[in-house]
């Protein structure tokens, strides 16, 4: 299996969190709260909220980043599975979550050049949450087309 050999990195930019993560952060013990930097402390003071309240919001974002890292790892494994069927020299080097653009970017090294494949978040979520044959097929079409190998897409 390719999973033991996975060497790609996962980068997450942004602090998007779910309601449940925010709620978890609100109930976290004070000892688990992240330290704020000077800018964050200044903003909290300016807005008249406590540093602890600010830190809880920030912690929710960190929970969200961790969740996205895990999802990026799952998605990356699916991309690696597709690359495994190609000629040697195709390698996934990183999965990048672009939260504000609602997409993941797979950085793939090919024998010719590096290629970035943008995966819409909707498809990424389907792969991680459902992973049906149809979802896998959509991802395969997207990756192979982006790499310039549309001829390898199986016809049904």
């Amino acid at each position: 299996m390719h999973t033991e050999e996975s060497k790609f990195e996962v980068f997450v930019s942004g602090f998007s969190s779910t309601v449940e993560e925010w709620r978890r952060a609100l109930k976290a013990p004070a000892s688990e709260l992240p330290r704020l930097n000077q800018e964050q402390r200044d903003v909290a003071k300016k807005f008249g909220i406590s540093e602890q309240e600010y830190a809880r919001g920030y912690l929710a974002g960190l929970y969200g980043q961790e969740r996205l890292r895990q999802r990026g790892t799952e998605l990356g494994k699916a991309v690696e599975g597709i690359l495994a069927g190609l000629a040697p020299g195709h390698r996934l080097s990183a999965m990048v979550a672009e939260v504000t653009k609602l997409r993941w970017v797979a950085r793939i090294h090919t024998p010719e050049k590096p290629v970035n494949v943008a995966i819409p978040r909707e498809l990424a979520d389907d792969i991680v949450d459902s992973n049906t044959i149809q979802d896998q097929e959509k991802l395969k079409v997207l990756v192979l087309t982006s790499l310039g190998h549309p001829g390898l897409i199986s016809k049904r």
Partner: protein
Amino acid sequence: MLLAGEFVLFQLSPEGQQALAGLFPARFSAYVVHEDELGVWILTAMEAVSQTDPVETDKPGKAVPVTLLKRQYFSTAVVDIDAQTLAEMAVSSLG
């Protein structure tokens, strides 16, 4: 810039302070659940922790009250943003 899914600090506009007097102070923090053409739909910390059950957002039939904050009611929103996102936004704004 998307605010949904973010912990946000809001500064109400003068119009917002007048319309929301007694509901929100001039500056407050909230979690933005959703964002649309009307404004942002927010959940405050008090609303979130006052619920005894976990907020199961994927459970049909589970009601979670959120509040609409119209766009004209806030003048400033502050969110944390990491350096990479900031750099990407700066580049894209340059065209």
